C-alpha cells in the first residue's frame, strides 16, 4: 500500500532536511542521556528500532538509545513508536539529534522505507546534476603521462599548497563539450588536508574526467580536476547517468 499523497509530500520534505531517519520507541520522557543536553519537556530518550536512512558511520546506532530534541512542545509517552526525521547535534556516550519532524509509524513500513530511498536517490541525482552543470567539459579518457607543473617554492608555498601536476589524457570520447585528441588536465597532487580528497592521477588510468576552468593557468594547463568526484573510474552505465544531465 503506497503512502498517501500528503504523507508522501511530508516525508519527501523532511527527508531533504534530515541526516538520520529511524523508527524509534520512546523510553524516557523529558529525559536526556547527555550532560551537554539538559532534560526538558522537549527532550526524550528514544530507542532506535530500525534505521530508514543514515550515512555509513551512523548505521551502528541501531539498537542504541538516542536523545531527541523535539521540534515542538511534544508530549511523548513511554513506548510510543514514531518515525523520526532528525539531524545529529551531539555525540557523547550516546548520540543526540534535533528533530526535523515525525510521523506516526505507517502500516506499510516498507512503502515508507522505499519512499525515503527514492528521495535519497533523487537527492544524489540532483548532486550529480549540479556537479555536471558546474563542469566546463567532460570526457572519457586514459592517462598517458603525468608531470609536475607546480611553480611553488619555499618562498610562495603554504602547507595548503595544491602542488599542481598535469596529466596528458587521450580522449576516448567527449561527453560534454567537444574535446578530442590529447588534452592536459591539472590536479592537486598535494596530500594536505585541503586537497587529499581530490583525484590523484597516474599513468594508465581510464575513466571519466569532469573538468573545470578554474580561472588559473598553471604550466600552461587551464583545465583542472579539484572535486573528489571529478575523476570516476566508471563504466558505461555511470557514463550514461552523467551524460543524461549534459
Amino acid at each position, binding site marked *: 500500500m503506497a503512502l498517501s499523497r500528503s504523507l508522501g509530500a511530508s516525508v519527501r520534505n523532511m527527508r531533504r532536511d534530515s541526516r538520520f531517519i529511524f523508527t524509534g520507541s520512546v523510553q524516557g520522557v523529558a529525559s536526556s542521556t547527555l550532560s551537554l543536553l539538559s532534560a526538558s519537556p522537549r527532550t526524550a530518550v528514544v530507542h532506535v528500532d530500525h534505521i530508514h536512512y543514515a550515512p555509513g558511520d551512523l548505521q551502528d546506532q541501531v539498537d542504541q538509545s538516542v536523545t531527541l530534541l523535539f521540534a515542538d512542545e511534544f508530549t511523548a509517552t513511554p513506548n510510543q513508536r514514531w518515525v523520526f526525521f532528525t539531524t545529529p547535534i551531539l*555525540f557523547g556516550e550516546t548520540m543526540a539529534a534535533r528533530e526535523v519532524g515525525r510521523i506516526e509509524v505507517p502500516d506499510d513500513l516498507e512503502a515508507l522505507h522505499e519512499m525515503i530511498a527514492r528521495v535519497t536517490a533523487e537527492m544524489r541525482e540532483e548532486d550529480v546534476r549540479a556537479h555536471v552543470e558546474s563542469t566546463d567539459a567532460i570526457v572519457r579518457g586514459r592517462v598517458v603521462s603525468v608531470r609536475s607543473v607546480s611553480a611553488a617554492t619555499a618562498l610562495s608555498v603554504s602547507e595548503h599548497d595544491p602542488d599542481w601536476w598535469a596529466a596528458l589524457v587521450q580522449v576516448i570520447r567527449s561527453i560534454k563539450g567537444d574535446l578530442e585528441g590529447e588534452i592536459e588536465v591539472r590536479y592537486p597532487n598535494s596530500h594536505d*588536508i585541503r586537497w587529499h580528497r581530490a583525484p590523484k592521477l597516474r599513468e594508465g588510468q581510464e575513466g571519466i574526467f569532469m573538468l573545470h576552468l578554474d580561472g588559473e593557468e598553471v604550466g600552461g594547463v587551464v583545465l583542472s580536476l579539484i572535486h573528489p568526484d571529478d575523476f570516476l573510474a566508471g563504466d558505461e552505465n555511470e557514463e550514461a547517468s552523467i551524460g543524461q544531465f549534459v
Partner: protein
Amino acid sequence: MEKRRVRVVNMIPKSVSSETNQDSEPQLTVDPENHRTIIGTSFTPPPGGGSLAPLFVSVDGGDTWTLDLVIPGAGGVTGDTNDQSVRFGGASSLYAGILRGDNVKLDILRSAPYSPAAVMTPLVQDPTPVIDQPYLAVAQSKGKDRVFVGNNDRSSGPWRGSVEHSADARTAPAPAGFTQYGLDQRLPFFRELPPIRCAPHHDGTVYAGYLSVRKFEATDSLVDVVVARDDNFAAGATPFTALLDPGDLLPGMRVVKSTPTPWTFPFSFLGNQRVGSNVSIAVDPANSDVVYIAWSNGPVSGVTQSLRVRRSTDRGLTWSGDLVVVPNATNPALAVTAHGRVGFLYQERVTPSGGAPRWETHVQVTRDAWASPAEDIVAATTPDTPNPPGYTGPHIYDPYIGDYADLQAAGREFYGIFCALNTPDLANFPHGVRFQRNADFSTHQLFDLSGVTPVANSIDPFFVHISWHEEHELEDERGPRFERVRVKGLRYERLEIDELVIDIERK
C-alpha cells in the same frame, strides 16, 4: 606532601566508536570561569556528514568528551574544516578562528557564552582565501575580551605575519572591531612562515612570536626568530612596536638571527609528520617581564629538526641561551602557571634500539627554567604508523599528527592536547589512559558501537592533565565509595568511647 597526578584521556566519544578518521592537529582551551569546562578541536569531520564541524567538549574536567556540532563551513570541495583555533574569554565566551572547509576562507567565530548545540556566530568572514593558520590568544581586561588572531596573510603578495585584533570581541556586534596589523617592517622582506603566535598578559603586554625568512637554501630556510611586543593590548596607533631591536632599531627583537629551520618545498618530514615551521610563546601570568619562546631548528648535524627554548626576563630585550634542546621533535607548546611552573609539551620521534620508530609525547615541567633537570612526563609513546603491522601505504593526509599540539595553564595546572595512534595498549601510555570508545586493552583492539565488530587503528586526539595536590586532596577524589576517618590533634585526659564505627570501602 605534594603529589603529581597525570591523566590521559582518549577524546573520541563512545557513540562514534566506529570512526577511523585521522583526527590530527589539535588545540584546546579551558574556561577561566570554570576549569571543568574544556573545549578542544582537531581535524574531525562531523559524524554523519553535514555542514557543521565538531568541537570536543568536556564539562567534567576532561574525564569524558562530547562532540558538539557547532562550527560552520564543513563540507564543500575539501570536505573538512581546515586549520582551527579556539580560546575561551571571560564569562565563558568562546572564540574560534577557522579556515572553512567549503571555501577555505578565514572565519572568526564567537559564542558568548558558549552553549552546546548553538552554532557559533561569524564575527569576521574574510572575502578571499588569503589567510593561513589562524591562531587565537585572549586576554580579559576591564570586563572586555581582547582577542588576538595570529595569521599568515598573502593578500598583499608574499606571506606576511599579521595579527587580527579586537578590543571587545565579547559584546561588540560583528565584526567586533577586528583590525589587522602587519608585524614585520624589516627589508628586504621575503616572508614569514605559517605560525604567528601571540601571548597576551592581563596587564596589557602582548608578545608575538614568528619566524621571518632571511634566505632560502636547498635543505632549509634561514630565519630570524623574532619576538615583538605591545604594551597596551595593541590599542595604540602603531601596535607591536614597543620592543625595538638595538641592532637595527626596528620593531621585533631578533632572538636568533639567520638560523636554519627545515622549511622547504617539497616539505621536510620527520617520519610521517611534515615539519619545518614551529613556534610557541608563553608569558608568565605573574610577571609580564618573563616570556618564553620555542621554535623549530634544523637540519643540524644530520638531525632534521630540533626544538629549542629560550627565555627573557626583561620583556624581550635580552634572551638566554638554549634552555633545552630536543632533537627529532615537533609541535612545541609552552605554558606558564600562575605559580611559575613552566610546561613544555612536544612530540619527539624516537627509534628504540632494535625497534620501530615511535612518537613520544612529552611534557617537561620546570620551576627554575631548566636550571635543574625538569620533570619529564611521557604522556604517550605510540608507533609512527597509522596502520597495522605490514601495511606500507601512505597515511591519509598531511599533517599526520598535526602541525601543532597545545598546552594551556589554568591556575596551577596544565591542560594539554596531542594526537597519536589510538591502539588501546597500556604499554603506550606510561601514566595510564582512559578510553571512552569501545576498546579491549587485552587484545589491543578497538570495536564499533556494538562492541562486536573490530575497528582499524587511526589517529585520535588525547587530553592530558597534569596537576599537583596535597596528598589529602587526592584522597578526596576517590569518590563516594570511600569513607574516611581522620583524627587530627587528638588531646584527652580521659577518653571514653562507647561506640566507634569505621566503614572503609563499600563494594
